[in-house]
């Protein structure tokens, strides 16, 4: 009367379970958007016109899209942290769901809120003059989705390692978040910075994603920039999922 489960059906089960609260309570998506929108409203007007040769909004908005994606996916492990602490994660560990699917299904779900957030940011900025290139933007969304899966998986891995130590999870998360954002040149271009800072920026995988997003949203077909962004996203996803799966299998 029951059909044998497969890694795919397990992943779908986990994906659907994770997605339901988002669909039932769409407002939760807006919540992690507050900070990026604050930067958009209160920081963007401070930027001098003609940064990196483009209009301020054309330069700033793609970075803010990446930022909002990063904020949401890096903190997504907090849900798992609660589930570990309260008991529902344990219940799922005793079910026949595969350990790998518990991570992959969760990480894939990250794509949905990230896309929803991007749509909201676009809706908020287009009336103020932001003009995304449609085909480029679709490519940009693809790269961002892949990147989110990797960051989400890493956040879940961090939650598994933290267990009941919330301070560890949030400590690492906060310590990593802003250096990544600043070194990727999301707030201000790093080109004018000192050499050591530019070198660190080159070591930051987020830098390549941001550069690719800027090119794509503006319809600038710079193959090498886009390829580096896509590569960075794919490497992040593969690495994140691998770390996540290993951590999940080892976590008990």
């Amino acid at each position, binding site marked *: 009367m029951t059909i*044998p489960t497969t890694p795919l059906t397990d992943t779908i089960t986990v994906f659907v379970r994770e997605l339901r609260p988002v669909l*039932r309570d769409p407002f939760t998506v807006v919540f992690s958007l507050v900070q990026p929108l604050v930067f958009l409203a209160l920081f963007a007007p401070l930027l001098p016109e003609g940064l990196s040769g483009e209009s301020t909004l054309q330069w700033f908005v793609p970075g803010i899209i990446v930022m909002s994606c990063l904020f949401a996916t890096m903190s997504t492990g907090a849900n798992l942290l609660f589930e570990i602490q309260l008991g529902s994660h344990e219940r799922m560990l005793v079910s026949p769901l595969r350990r790998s699917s518990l991570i992959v299904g969760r990480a894939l779900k990250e794509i949905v809120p990230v896309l929803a957030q991007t749509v909201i940011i676009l809706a908020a900025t287009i009336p103020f003059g932001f003009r995304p290139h449609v085909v480029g933007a679709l490519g940009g969304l693809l790269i961002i989705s892949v990147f989110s899966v990797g960051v989400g998986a890493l956040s879940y891995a961090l939650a598994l390692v933290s267990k009941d130590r919330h301070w560890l999870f949030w400590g690492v998360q906060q310590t990593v978040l802003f250096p990544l954002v600043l070194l990727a040149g999301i707030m201000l271009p790093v080109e004018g910075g000192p050499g050591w800072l530019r070198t660190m920026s080159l070591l930051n995988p987020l830098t390549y994603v941001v550069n690719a997003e800027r090119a794509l949203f503006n319809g600038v077909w710079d193959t090498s920039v886009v390829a580096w962004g896509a590569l960075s996203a794919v490497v992040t996803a593969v690495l994140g999922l691998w770390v996540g799966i290993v951590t999940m299998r080892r976590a008990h």
Partner: protein
Amino acid sequence: MNETMIHASALTKHFTTRKRTVEAVRGIDLNVEAGEMVAILGPNGAGKSTTLRMLTTLLLPTSGTAQVAGADIRTQPRQVRSRIGYVGQGTGSGYNQRGRDELISQGRAYGMSTDQARRRAEELIASLDLSNVADRRSSSLSGGQKRRLDIALGLMHTPPLLFLDEPSTGLDPQNRANLHEHIRELRSRHDTTIVFTTHYLDEADQLAERVVVIDHGTIIADDTPERLKAEYAGDRITLTFDRADDAKRAFGHLMARAESARGTHDGVRVVLEVDGGSRLAPALLRELEEADLPVAAVEIARPTLDDVFLNLTGRSLRDAAASEPAATQEVPA
């Protein structure tokens, strides 16, 4: 219908924390046949939960083996998982999830179709009185409602074997009685084999047909509650005197009698543990009266499992938890 549900031999678990090794479970042998209702009783830190975690594949044993529902916990953990139900100490439903959604996801995890899962969820929602709250977020439910939802989750795939880890901890008496009723019904209607841990004596006494007493990681007794009490504890006669001096003399007098095997003396009170207490008491009172040691009050109590535990370990189950090392209460991932 007489298959073995659990066959564990020499199950052992050691935890190492900060260079200190804690032997949480030291070689447990346990056989549970289909249809049994077994309580694993012991103080906090005795190794009950660790044993349950090994049997449910949440923890790998340090040594020893176990077959659970026909599969090996080491080599076939997924088969074990698909055949057992588990209700843990925590809340089974996700805090941001609705009960019905969780039940359907649970059904899908066990390979049910969405339709099957939906129908089964509906059945359980009705039979566990969850109709009013099944579409609310789990975090907004009361303790009793959450617990009933946990049980529904554990029963989604109609497992032949159900484990419950301290199912009534944190419930008020009314909810606890309600929970017991549901567990009994499972047993009588569906012939589910049930294994639960508890540190509540009355729970083990009232609910289980077999009590496995665990202390310091080993099984120290294993029988029906009635036989455990008959074997390890007698009736308790408490005699209270007006003067401590009388009590002392009465104690000496009573200890000389053959029937009163065990007794203690404290202030104005003498406590005797005897067989057939209600028959013996009138004779004792007469004797003491004749010896000019008038008894001010007398109380006769039937033995409890606490007396059994006390006689087996020298400690009361109520106090035993405090003397346990905290490290044995291990937190799983």
